[in-house]
């Protein structure tokens, strides 16, 4: 094959990927600024009235607030567990490493609807349903492997002698972990934390099962709205979601773009 036809195929594939990946976002963005009363693309005129409407809508604001709480709880619960597990599995010689790995990845093997119903039953039994924070705990459980992976890959990239060097410098076990291992895997911890935040923010199925009218999160609230009437304010909410995700990516780049510099040679 000639290089020009290779180039053609390459750029065609790139073009298709870019279009299919960005199309939903572009359509939603366009639809959200319509001045008409129905969702339409291309938009019918330009106005920010739908943003104004969602800003005024009390139930949406409350749902967003609850989703932020869910995400925060999820990060607080999953980060310490995932970080310690990720470090332990890559840097210390443990017995049954494979078994532990499989066990920690179990949340991925169970369909979300299954784990959602399971947790609904357990949380119901404990009488904690009807609160917002258990949704965060549930998100932490189902997405835990993401933090473990993120921290593990950071930890695996470090020089194996790093901890020995710390001990040689006079650091005890705890000091070695606190001053050397943990800071050195921080890029992975930050990546994992932001990932967990966004995943919990957008988690729908498990939220749907664990919330009631008083505790709906943003994705569930949007779903409820769709069921009644589809208006451009839904597109505006979706844009808010996209912006939250973009902020996370931006933060990631600012904080962990440093990762390549932090790696020890």
């Amino acid at each position, binding site marked *: 094959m000639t290089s020009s036809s290779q180039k053609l195929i390459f750029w065609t594939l790139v073009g298709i990927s870019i279009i299919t990946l960005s199309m939903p976002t572009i359509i939603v963005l366009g639809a959200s600024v319509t001045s008409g009363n129905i969702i339409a693309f291309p938009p019918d005129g330009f106005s920010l009235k739908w943003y104004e409407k969602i800003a005024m809508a009390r139930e949406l604001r409350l749902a967003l607030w609850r989703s932020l709480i869910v995400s925060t709880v999820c990060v607080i619960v999953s980060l310490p567990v995932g970080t310690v597990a990720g470090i332990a599995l890559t840097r210390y010689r443990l017995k049954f490493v494979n078994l532990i790995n499989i066990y920690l990845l179990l949340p991925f093997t169970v369909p979300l609807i299954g784990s959602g119903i399971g947790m609904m039953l357990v949380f119901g039994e404990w009488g904690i349903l009807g609160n917002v924070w258990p949704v965060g705990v549930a998100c932490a459980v189902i997405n835990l492997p993401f933090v473990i992976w993120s921290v593990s890959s950071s930890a695996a990239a470090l020089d194996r*002698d790093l901890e020995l060097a*710390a001990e040689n*410098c006079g*650091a005890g076990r705890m000091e070695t972990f606190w001053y050397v291992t943990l800071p050195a895997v*921080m890029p992975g911890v930050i990546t994992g934390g932001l990932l967990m935040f966004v995943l919990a923010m957008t988690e729908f199925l498990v939220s749907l099962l664990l919330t009631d009218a008083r505790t709906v999160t943003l994705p569930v609230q949007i779903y409820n709205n769709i069921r009644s009437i589809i208006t451009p304010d839904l597109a505006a909410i979706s844009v808010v979601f996209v912006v939250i995700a973009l902020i996370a990516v931006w933060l990631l780049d600012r904080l962990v773009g440093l990762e390549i510099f932090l790696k020890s040679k």
Partner: protein
Amino acid sequence: MFMSDLQLDSASRAERSVAVSVRGVTMDFGSGSPAVKDASFDVETGSFLTILGPSGSGKTTLLRMIAGFQKPTQGTITIAGKPVDADPPNRRSIGMVFQKLALFPHMTAAENVAFPLKMRRTNPAEISGKVEKFLNLVKLDGYAERRPHELSGGQQQRVAIARALVFEPELLLLDEPLAALDRKLREEMQLEFRRIQKELGVTTINVTHDQREALVVSDDIIVMDQGLIQQHDRPVGLYRAPNNLFVASFIGVSTFIDGTLTADGLKVGDLLLPGSATPEATLGAPARGAVRAEQLRIGAGPEALAGCEIEMDGKVEDVIFEGERLIYVVGCERAPDIKFQIYHHDPHSFDIFEIGSPVRIGWHGKDMKIFNHDA
């Protein structure tokens, strides 16, 4: 004799104190033969010892046991008169430069150097003074605020040395930290290690597979192979009088000649080659003679070989040009299985024997060492 300058006589050796004493240390990982077998040696205070050996010889295991990262299966290690077998690594007063340096990537050069002091609860004013002093010692003033990735390979080495020495340890361990550097930088850093070691007078144990490095930097060398100490000697002694075949072949370039040991020398077919046999070599047993490449002479005719007891006609089979010298590979009809490797160095002439040229080679009988050789 020049030798006397390089070798301390036994009396003055005995006066020196012992910084590290290793007694009967064995490390058995339980898979096949032990990694280190019954190693015993002393390191004089302030001296620079190199443990030299090929990979898998047990040299790194031995170093890690001294550092406390691995517990010997048997034996005792004493540092500054105190047995350290029960002490974890962080309680031993040992600085170490790791093979891949293991600098803390999230800390600046100054923070890396300050770390051992911080762990020893030194007061902050003293820490900053010492960090400055040691960065100065390794010629890194002005680089204090750089992170390891912002420093060149040589500068990273210097940070690692400063970190290992800043708390004034009883002992400095070097785990092949120069192996990854290119040749020029490596040779520069070897001399730098030597300078710093002499300046501080810190007892040092260095591990390497590089025989040149060992000869250049060390006061003493231990040669290891297959977990056993093969020889412990001063560099000159080691080079001049290798104990056994392994040491003879690992250090320097030699031509080896197989035969049988007789009272008059090595018998190879109908040839009788005079030489000096090691005490272990037994008469009548298979033996192997070794002549160093620089001890072999080469010339167009007998006149170039004045004084050689052994002379042979040969033919140049290969010529390797190394810049400051040539290596000739010569085959001889009288010893058909042997390829003689001969260094040739003449700073005033670049006359080179072509491949296929007839030449005459020779050597002094005393230059051939004869070892036991189990064929």
